[in-house]
């Protein structure tokens, strides 16, 4: 048997893709999130409806871009939808998104707002955005973290931008919006440990349970003999690579600043410039 060559970013994206299914509107604000949706749609989940931007472009076949999500939607003749459409889909649980928080804790609370106290943060991040809406309505909440460390996987988040498990959830929310999966660079996790705590589902190839525990700022429930995350199939890899002409997955993985400028220059070459729907408005 020939081993399939793949890189860690590709393993993570494919693990994320395998969590998606059914007929949902799938939005993305990051290359990893977008590629996970694309791989799912072109392999096991053809009924997914992908958006080209965080809020529009239904019916498109998007790929991660730096600035061109809206241009893709227009040039592909995607169905234009509104912010209200997106929130209707969230509130009616017909929406999915992979979220990349700065911190996640053992009960699945997530933080993209601030490190340190909210009033005077050590690091002010961006604000809760739409995570409170997701975490009070969706039946599947999906998170990924590319640098699993005691700073990102913590006992308690500094600020709850999204609601995890706990007394507040039991009192106000029930199951709607509860965290279901976490994929990191070390493995795949759920929140099905005691009291809905973080639990390992599978280890990525070459990763040990000791490494997972050491990289986590909270206890992780480790089952005996955890399975290994299945590697990407050739079909999954082919879709993934074909839909990432700028290799933005590698940019998100490595955060290379110089690489962004080169990609920004290159991205124009990957669009159908003469598409009548775009030219019409010139």
């Amino acid at each position, binding site marked *: 048997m020939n081993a399939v060559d793949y890189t860690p970013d590709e393993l993570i994206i494919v693990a994320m893709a395998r969590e998606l299914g059914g007929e949902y509107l799938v939005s993305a604000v990051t290359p990893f999130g977008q590629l996970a949706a694309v791989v799912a749609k072109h392999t096991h989940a053809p009924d997914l409806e992908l958006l080209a931007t965080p809020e*529009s472009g239904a019916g498109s076949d998007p790929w991660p871009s730096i600035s061109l999500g809206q241009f893709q939607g227009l040039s592909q003749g995607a169905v234009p939808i509104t912010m209200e459409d997106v929130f209707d889909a969230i509130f009616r649980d017909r929406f999915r998104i992979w979220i990349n928080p700065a911190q996640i804790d053992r009960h699945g609370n997530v933080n993209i707002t601030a490190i340190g106290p909210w009033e005077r943060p050590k690091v*002010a991040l961006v604000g809760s*955005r739409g995570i409170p809406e997701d*975490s009070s309505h969706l039946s599947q909440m999906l998170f990924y973290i590319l640098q699993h460390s005691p700073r990102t996987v913590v006992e308690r988040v500094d600020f*709850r931008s999204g*609601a995890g498990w706990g007394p*507040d959830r039991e009192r106000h929310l029930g199951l709607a919006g509860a965290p279901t999966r976490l994929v990191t660079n070390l493995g795949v996790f759920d929140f099905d440990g005691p009291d809905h705590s973080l639990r390992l589902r599978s280890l990525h190839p070459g990763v040990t349970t000791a490494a997972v525990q050491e990289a986590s700022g909270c206890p992780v429930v480790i089952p005996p003999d955890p399975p290994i995350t299945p590697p990407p199939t050739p079909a999954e890899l082919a879709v993934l690579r074909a839909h990432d002409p700028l290799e933005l997955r590698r940019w998100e993985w490595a955060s290379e600043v110089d690489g962004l400028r080169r990609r920004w220059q290159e991205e124009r070459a990957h669009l159908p410039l003469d598409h009548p729907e775009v030219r019409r408005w010139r």
Partner: protein
Amino acid sequence: MDKVLTVEAMVAKVPDGASIVFGGSSLSRKPMAVARELVRQGRRDLTLIVNIGGPEVDLLLGAGAVKKVVYAFVGFEILGLAPHFRQARQRGLAQFEEWTEYTVIAGLDATIKAVPFLPTRAGLGTDVLAVNPAFRRIADPFGSGQELVAVPALNPDFAFIHVNYADCAGNAAILGDTHIDPLAAKAARTTFVTCEKLVPPEVLRRFGRDASILRIWVDGVAEVPWGAHPTGCAPQYRFDLDAFTQYLEAAAEPERWAAYLDRVRQLSPEEYVDHWGGTAGLQARLRV
């Protein structure tokens, strides 16, 4: 009907201390010519209301023009954190009120629907409710036992929105994502639209449902080509990475930032376009 005026005249109507909702989203179709003009005219003590805020909020914070920011998000997306927003949050240089994407929509919608608040589940179980004094928890008056968040009406003094095309009566067409702009136009006491190009009313009507802002909501319209620069305006131009790189470098150092602001104050909207290479230069880099 003719509501055409200049961006300078629009901004001249905004007093110190006014509240302003900006359209657009992060690096997309932000009314940047207006933000620059607010700096040029030295406006102070503004309250900014944004759903997905970005460079417009950051520039005005960096110019010391802001008293308070109401926001669901302020950032530069793929380019990272917004430097002056970050600094102002960390040093307490302005007041901040963290909302969420839908609650900003609900707050504007409450004003449009002429009710004092709208209920939602969004925010329950999060710390947004702990830090944002604007919200109230309420019980379902119909007795389901469900607790809800009451989102108060947001009624900005001004809305500023940048669009692709408009006519002289204020009808406006947005060809890419509309973001919160149609809501902002309806909720503000005074709504000003800047556009890439003014077109005759019969041409504007050809855009059909893309003409998502009707003139009854619009008090003034100005033609400002490249008025969203350095953010993008799909499908006409994408965001300008070179201009953002320059901005972020300037923001990292007080002396360079002072020089950057001096330049913002010196350049009229027309001179601004010339500074970035004129229409030909901008098109060469930014047109798709």
